[in-house]
């Protein structure tokens, strides 16, 4: 029984890295640009769909991966144009693209799903060869992190970070913030679609629902990683991204554990979403109820009440005396 559990761990690690790569995409929008981009629910499926179509048509693997990434980038471009040139709020822009992608993905696949069985095609990663898959996924993640570390250290990359940190300052310093937002969204969704291409190979199929709730998984990876290992990173950007991937792995290990313990798998999404709500609320609640100022205020209020009680008691006694 316990053996089964440990046997399931490598699969959890593989899935964790795949979704960790996806979470790096979420990190770029959510953490760097300060935009909650809901495009990802659609663009992860777009990546899977494009990859599956090309593989089943006998195209080489590298082309399938590149095409999937580019397709995701186009989705990000659409969201970026909605948001910047058309002035639609970021969240709504993402939802609109997500809806558009639902139709686009169905068209790409020619149906609700498209299978790419590992038995018939020469896939890069497969559920049945976990050791090899994990090594390949690790290489993908590390190369990606290295490239992003370089990119966000460049003059242009720094201007994207500045855009997320302070829009007003960025415009005043001559940064075209529409452009930096669009490039950030393009980059993010390209990465998300790449992870979709990997997920589709791992699952042996692309399905129209494969991206549903992806944003929750991505945010969970980002938040879990930061909460547990954020203190290790200091200001090192590469470490922060590594921590995101580790957050993804932890998410899937926990996921496997709760399933093993017999939690109704229908309740998993809700559990994950509630967990994220708690993590997101933590800093706010901490400030409101547990900061030094809040504690001091409470203390002062209590003392005031105590003093008032004493006063009223005294007054009561005095009035009693007077009557006597």
């Amino acid at each position, binding site marked *: 029984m316990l053996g089964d559990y440990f046997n399931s761990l490598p699969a959890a690690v593989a899935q964790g890295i795949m979704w960790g790569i996806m979470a790096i995409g979420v990190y770029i929008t959510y953490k760097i640009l300060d935009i909650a981009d809901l495009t990802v629910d659609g663009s992860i499926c777009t990546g899977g769909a494009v990859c599956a179509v090309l593989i089943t048509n006998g195209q080489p693997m590298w082309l399938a991966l590149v095409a999937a990434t580019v397709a995701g980038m186009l989705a990000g471009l659409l969201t970026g144009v909605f948001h910047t040139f058309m002035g639609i709020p970021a969240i709504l822009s993402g939802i609109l693209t997500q809806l558009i992608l639902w139709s686009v993905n169905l068209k790409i696949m020619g149906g609700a799903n498209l299978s790419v069985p590992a038995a018939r095609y020469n896939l890069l990663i497969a559920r049945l060869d976990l050791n090899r898959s994990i090594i390949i996924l690790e290489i993908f993640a590390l190369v990606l992190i290295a490239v992003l570390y370089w990119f966000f*250290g460049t*003059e242009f990359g720094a201007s994207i970070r500045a855009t997320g*940190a302070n829009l007003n*300052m960025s415009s*005043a*310093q001559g940064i*075209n913030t529409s452009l930096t937002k669009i490039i950030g969204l393009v980059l993010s969704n390209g990465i998300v679609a790449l992870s979709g291409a990997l997920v589709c190979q791992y699952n042996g199929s692309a399905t129209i629902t494969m991206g549903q709730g992806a944003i929750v998984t991505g945010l969970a990876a980002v938040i879990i990683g930061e909460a547990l290992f954020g203190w290790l990173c200091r*200001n090192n950007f590469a470490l922060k991204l590594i921590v995101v991937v580790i957050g993804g792995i932890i998410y899937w290990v926990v996921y496997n554990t709760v399933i093993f313990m017999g939690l109704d798998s229908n309740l998993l999404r809700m559990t994950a979403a509630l967990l994220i709500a708690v993590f997101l609320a933590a800093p706010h609640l901490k400030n409101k109820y547990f900061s030094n100022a809040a504690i001091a205020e409470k203390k002062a209020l209590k003392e005031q009440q105590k003093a008032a009680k004493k006063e009223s008691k005294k007054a009561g006694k005095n009035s009693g005396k007077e009557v006597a």
Partner: protein
Amino acid sequence: MLELIDVKKTFNPGTINAKKALQGVNLHLNPGDFVTIIGGNGAGKSTVMNAIAGVWPIDSGIIRIDGKEVMSLPEYKRAKYLGRVFQDPMMGTAATMEIQENLAIAARRGKHRTLRWGISSAEKKKFREQLAILNLGLEDRLTAKVGLLSGGQRQALTLLMATLNEPKLLLLDEHTAALDPKTAKKVLELTDSIIQEKKLTAMMVTHNMKDAIAHGNRLIMMHEGKIIFDVSGEEKKALTVEALLAKFSQSSGQEFASDRALLS
């Protein structure tokens, strides 16, 4: 250096909230001019600054910076010519980025941002020297996050960032209003010395009449979206707060209506 010709701007036109913020502003600044701008609440002081910076398009009129018409340029393109410091110390710097990263961003104002590394070691040395001039001990904290700095420190840093690449025009929008009096004085002294040293053309909005008289070589008073009083040279040096208040009621036919200005 700066030319404003009949600049007009109405906010929320055609609604019950319509506000004629600028009603034909004309102004000509010579290179090296340091103008202080005063006026009551809603006189259009900050609006003039935002019109020049391109925060929103103006309704009509001409704005020239260094001979170039800039009305059709977006804010980020006009930034090439302008250094800006805002009233809110949070607005001019990125809190989650390091001091040196903020400076490196400012050092590329008006330049093409490439895929070269965002900050060079030669720059770091230069930043350290420049920060030392501020005399706030920031030169030893290049990698500290700006969010850790006090309001005064952030404002001094914003001032340095605004003047790192010499701007054609420095716009100071009540940049000491949110600071305590002692810090405000220090930042003002710093402003004076940087403007003098780099021979910058500058505009400073202030609600403090004493500051407006003590700094710069020219003083402008605004009222209801117009410039109602413009004085420079010896005449400006001889001004007093009382004389300014008298001038205001004479020009506008009203009492000077700004609690902040009267109290400070």
